[in-house]
């Protein structure tokens, strides 16, 4: 029960933060990505703000074993190909998973055309590659 309450508090904070920072606005996201066009750098502040907290936060919370484990991470082709495909998809619509889910109830008709294919692709990827643990 405590875990579910934690998830409720953290999820609400996360969704509130995404809305406040305008990450939920796909036009704004595409404007941020449009560095060769009419670039809108606002969203760089979102990543900056998040890292301002997460870098010192994790530095304090991670154990030595955690840090050693993270160091052993291997950069493989799946990571590169997967991230590249994700980036292309993100650019096409301006939606990534967090903001898309957060804003879904407000503009559900548009979001279903994004979220249903997303879920289908994950199920297909799961069937092809199996369910690996991180």
């Amino acid at each position, binding site marked *: *029960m405590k*875990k579910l309450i*934690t*998830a*409720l508090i*953290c*999820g*609400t*904070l*996360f*969704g509130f*933060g995404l*809305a*406040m*920072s*305008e990450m*939920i606005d796909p036009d704004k996201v595409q404007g941020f*990505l*449009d560095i*060769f*066009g009419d670039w809108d750098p606002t969203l760089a*502040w*979102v990543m*900056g*703000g*998040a890292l*301002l*907290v997460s*870098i010192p*936060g994790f*530095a304090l*919370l991670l154990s030595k074993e955690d840090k050693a484990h993270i160091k052993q*991470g291997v950069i493989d082709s*799946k990571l*590169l*190909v*997967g*991230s*590249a495909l*994700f*980036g*292309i*998809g*993100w650019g*096409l*619509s*301006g939606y990534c998973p967090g903001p898309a*889910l*957060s804003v879904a109830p*407000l*503009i559900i008709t*548009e979001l279903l055309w994004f*979220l249903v*294919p*997303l*879920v*289908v*692709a*994950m199920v297909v*990827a799961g069937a092809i590659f199996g369910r690996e643990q991180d």
Partner: protein
Amino acid sequence: MEFQWQALTGGILVGLSAVLLFMSMRKIAGISGMIKQVLSNKGNGSDRWWPLVFIGSLMLGTWIYSILFSVESSLREGYPKELLIASGLLVGFGTYIGKGCTSGHGVCGIGRLSKRSIVATIVFMLCAVITVAVMGALS
């Protein structure tokens, strides 16, 4: 670059959420990973349900913000369906095999100083920038 307090504060809240979740549950606030876990339908009790609660709470948090400060008027509707579908498929497939998205690799992974996540974030940012540039050139 102009100082953007609202974007900065929103980002700080996202970072706080990620750190709090790790502090109390030792879990990573990666949204694509949570969707993956919800779809896998495995585990027992709170281990099984917390990702679903988190996703529902994301919607709650954005909804609360939208009530306090109207945002609906600025939201986009009627974007080309074929682009939304292609985007959804690529984001779903890509984050599954790349094991993370903007939150998992971007906020948490870089926060953990993970080389994998730093590389992933550079790759997806670059590809997204190129995609938007190509779309701009074609339109």
